[in-house]
């Protein structure tokens, strides 16, 4: 254990995803020996990002304003919604240029181990978007791992009575993976070959 503030810093860094106690310690000591101006700049962007960036009122994507760039773009097809787990998945799909509809960011996937159930995801917001009948196709692009599949199954069952076309990205994506890490070509193909989800 280190003294007061140093240990506090290590503890805080250790809470970040992918940072174990050893890395936390290394980062902390790096910061301690870094140029004060650099650290100030880092502190500044951290605060700024928290103040300025928010989540789109409509789709949950990160946005600089009330609504994100995609939701404000009137050229995008309002009849199709692509459901993803995280904002970074929106970025990955946008890179493929295969998709011209809108998104809905859930904020994760159902995972009882981590205590995440449907109420913890932006599912109520999704249902509200589907209520007016304008959307005709829902593409479930949650990750191709167990939790992503379970979330997709749950959503497909939930919206079944609404009678929309529900599709799932084609397999070919590396199973057990993260959508974010699928390369553009594979992800693009997965979009083209999406299949009807029958539950």
């Amino acid at each position, binding site marked *: 254990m280190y003294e007061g503030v140093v240990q506090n810093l290590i503890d805080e860094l250790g809470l970040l995803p992918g940072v174990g106690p050893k890395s936390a310690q290394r980062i902390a000591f790096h910061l301690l020996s870094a140029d004060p101006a650099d650290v100030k700049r880092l502190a500044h962007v951290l605060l700024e990002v928290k103040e300025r960036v928010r989540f789109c009122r409509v789709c949950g994507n990160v946005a600089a304003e009330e609504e994100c760039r995609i939701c404000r773009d009137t050229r995008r097809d309002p009849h199709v919604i692509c459901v993803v787990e995280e904002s970074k998945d929106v970025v990955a799909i946008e890179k493929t240029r295969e998709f011209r509809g809108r998104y809905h960011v859930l904020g994760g996937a159902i*995972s*009882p181990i981590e205590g995440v*159930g*449907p*109420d913890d995801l932006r599912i109520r917001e999704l249902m509200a978007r589907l209520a007016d009948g304008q959307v005709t196709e829902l593409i479930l692009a949650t990750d191709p791992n167990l939790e992503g599949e*379970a979330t997709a199954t749950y959503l497909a069952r939930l919206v079944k009575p609404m009678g929309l076309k529900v599709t799932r990205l084609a397999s070919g994506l*590396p199973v057990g993976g993260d959508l974010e890490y699928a390369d553009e070509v594979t992800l693009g193909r997965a979009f083209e070959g999406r299949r009807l989800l029958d539950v």
Partner: protein
Amino acid sequence: MHVAHLSLTDFRSYSSVELALEPGVTAFVGPNGQGKTNLVEALAYVATLGSFRVATDAPLVRQGASRAIVRAAVVRDDRRALVELEINPGRANRARLNRSPVPRPRDILGLLRTVLFSPEDLALVKGDPADRRRFLDDLLVARAPRFAGVRADYDRVLKQRGALLRSAVQTRHGRRQGPRRQEAEAGFAAAGAGDALSTLEVWDAHLARHGAELLAARLELVAALRPLVAKAYALLAPASAPAGMEYRHTLSTAVDGLPPAPGDGPAAPPVTEPATPLPGRSELEEALRASLLEVRQAELERGVTLVGPHRDDLLLRLGELPARGYASHGESWSFALALRLGAYDLLRAEGGDPVLILDDVFAELDARRRRSLADIVAPAEQVLITAAVPEDVPAQLAGARFDVAEGSVTRVR
């Protein structure tokens, strides 16, 4: 196939060792505790990505070292592949094939296939159902490496579903009455009870799907293994009642082609089954789903998944009697060996002689069974034997010999 080279760094008792190996028989001889089993354990680890002696990786890393490295050059049909594994306890292991990293260690499964005989095998007959499930699943993976993925998926569904059931139990007991302080508690409180049940059906569907895949494969495996094990047992113990085996599932609904699960006690001798086709995956999936519904109340009370391949067993019989609890020590040993020999036969028939590893088994056998076993294994492409004294290696199996003493391995013949 055979292993042409084995190299260990900080594995078990070895800080560094290099071994050139040849096809045929190789014996590692030395007093107790000198590191013979450690050598073959490393090879078996490359084949299965797990130790047959310990459930976790930590004991595999040499005391004081932070990771172990196992390298093996595997020759199959004159093609040589270099497999490298870095074992990092508590962190992800890493694997390389011909010096290029592979995405997951799992991707090297199938490159080296081993069948290992060890004194621990007695647990296959005398031990818990988990030992026999592992035997079946390891063999499935050796036959078709994709089953490593199937099993991992199934285990993950079980974990998720288990967490959900437990959270439902917790909510039932007490949390409901109290003020709902959801935000105060991280973890389970986040998924409330109503929530939990609404997703249970989703997990049921996934459990049934992955479970059916595993179950179908195990049933098929048992059917293929049964005659081979019976044959091997008859060779090892000609005077004993015949060896039989039945898969004991946990399904509560009837499925075409699947006999009801056998009970624990003595039973009518299993009728030599007419060749009824085994049930398919979709029938099993349906049956798993239906069986889950039947036990739902009990599951919600106990917070565990009560139906599925993780609760199944392989019932071994000698004649009408179950082997477990009835067979003598010698009979149990013969049965354990017969299971391994059956596995060897099966793998050999399906492409590529697996490497046979016999860890300390001859010392446990009487002269006749020693001879039978030696005769059966002698023709294999590569046989690796460990023994405390040279006399424990049967004469039919004379070959190369390494002496193992105080951490050094020296070729003497």
